[in-house]
């Protein structure tokens, strides 16, 4: 979906994380949204109303379409959160479930 211009094949700058339970990697300086876009993901979630697929629109924190679950916390704006090593990112489906 997006490709990186600067070829930073420097291991120190790579960040390992999990995406929907599977190993993935991004770069230092990525937001979670940027990392997912660089991995080719266009859709991050399904809407609460109709289940339509959505991806980021604005990448600046206003559209709230890039919502993912990070380390168990839902409704996180992926474009505002810096990627950290070991993060568990899950793409969302439908409305957030209340913990019982």
């Amino acid at each position, binding site marked *: *979906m997006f490709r*990186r*211009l600067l070829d930073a094949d420097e291991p120190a700058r790579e960040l390992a994380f999990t995406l929907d339970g599977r190993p993935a990697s991004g770069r230092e300086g990525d937001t979670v949204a940027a990392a997912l876009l660089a991995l080719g993901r266009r859709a991050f979630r399904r809407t609460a109303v109709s289940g339509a697929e959505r991806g980021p*629109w604005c990448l*600046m924190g*206003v*559209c*709230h379409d890039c919502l993912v679950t990070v380390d168990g916390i839902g*409704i996180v704006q992926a474009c505002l959160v810096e990627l950290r090593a070991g993060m568990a990112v899950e793409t969302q489906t439908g409305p957030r479930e209340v913990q019982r």
Partner: protein
Amino acid sequence: MKPPAPEYAVVVVGAGPAGMAAAVEAAVGGASVLVVDDNPAPGGQVWRAAGAGPFTDGRVLGPDYAAGGAAVREFAASVATADVDHLSGAQVWHLDDRLELGLVLPDGRGVVVRAGRVVLATGALERPMPVPGWTLPGVMSVGAAQTALKAQAMVPEGRYALAGCGPLLWLYAAQAAAAGAPPALVLDTSSRSNRREAAQHLPGFLLSPYARKGLPLLLRARRAAPVVGRVDGLHIVREGEGLLLFWTCGGREDAAPFDQVLLHHGVTPNLNLARAAGCELDWHEDNACFVPRTDEWGRTTVPGVLLAGDGAGIGGAEAAASGGRIAALAALAELGAITDDERDEAAAPLQAERARWLRGRPFLDLLYRPAPHFRAAEADAIVCRCEEVTGAQVAEAARLGATGPNQLKAWLRCGMGPCQGRMCGLTVTETIAAARGVPPAEVGYLRLRTPVRPVTLAQVAALPRTEAERRAVERL
């Protein structure tokens, strides 16, 4: 990151050009200053990652962006010497007329901060562009692509198109081309009928710094990719793994496949926090948007709350920096840190500088104001992305008696989703106006309330409360 103090003389919301300038000026004036910003690093949108991003020279992003780096470094120096407290990755969800702010810290904790004065430097966002298919994955705003370029040095993969109008569209085309990834096609929706009205303001534009910057940029941008002008209709559908973009020019329709489509129809003030704090809004016909009312100092209709930068009216980064300093000086005078005479003397050159830049805006605003049929949503276009409400539903509700956005909200939920009207507010107003046959100014804008961003019950419940407050609720 240490938590903020419970009280500051000046709290600045936003660390873009206006916010950084306001903070530094207020600190120089001796005030205790807190800057709260929701991004990981200062710079706002226009100077995103300018201090420490992947592009430090002007080769790809241009000299203005490189100049932003200096402002970011000056701000960082103020923070380092502890003149200014800077909370990054934090969100303001509440501001009231007692000048109390509710914040969510990056670790999720909620805190309350009291301010002597508040300077809102909350900037702008792109105008919604409700063409059918704009919610499909793979469709993003031009500003989003520019953000990815500045902060992560990323460009769209494959074939992509730009569609819309406005300076940012051309700026991104030039930047992406300089980065080796030009768009495959540019669809220019700028309306010919704007030209005569804009032309009256051409002298002001030519006398402003915009002319010197803008014309060479426009030439570079137009050489970067094939351009189709006079586009008066757009829609996007999924096709296989990609998208099919349809456009019309005076009745003739064309289509082409793309991996991604980037849309842009100008920028408008990001007014949610100001509105929820109680600031009155005015309709600005030139830029077809609502703007919180301010005086020449940036004072809003809420005493103690000032507004600077693009959030007070689109003027660009340089005008924003001047405006931030002017608002800080006004705040310092109100707090008694400087006299009114000192304030006036310091502000005079800043006001002149700001005027120099703003002289060029009416021409740009009018030239690139999107045509009315693009501002009101078509029947099958989604107006409210969060609640998935279409143009047809909004127009029908308006005809049935929902005369304004606040009644419409009760019927259709537009404005109730997580984005709180940022993506639909203007479209709702324009669509109702078109359905009723009245001007947008008469329709008005969504009334917004705290919280202006989603917060959890736990965050609200954990806020400190006094014994009196507890008793008032529990009635013990």
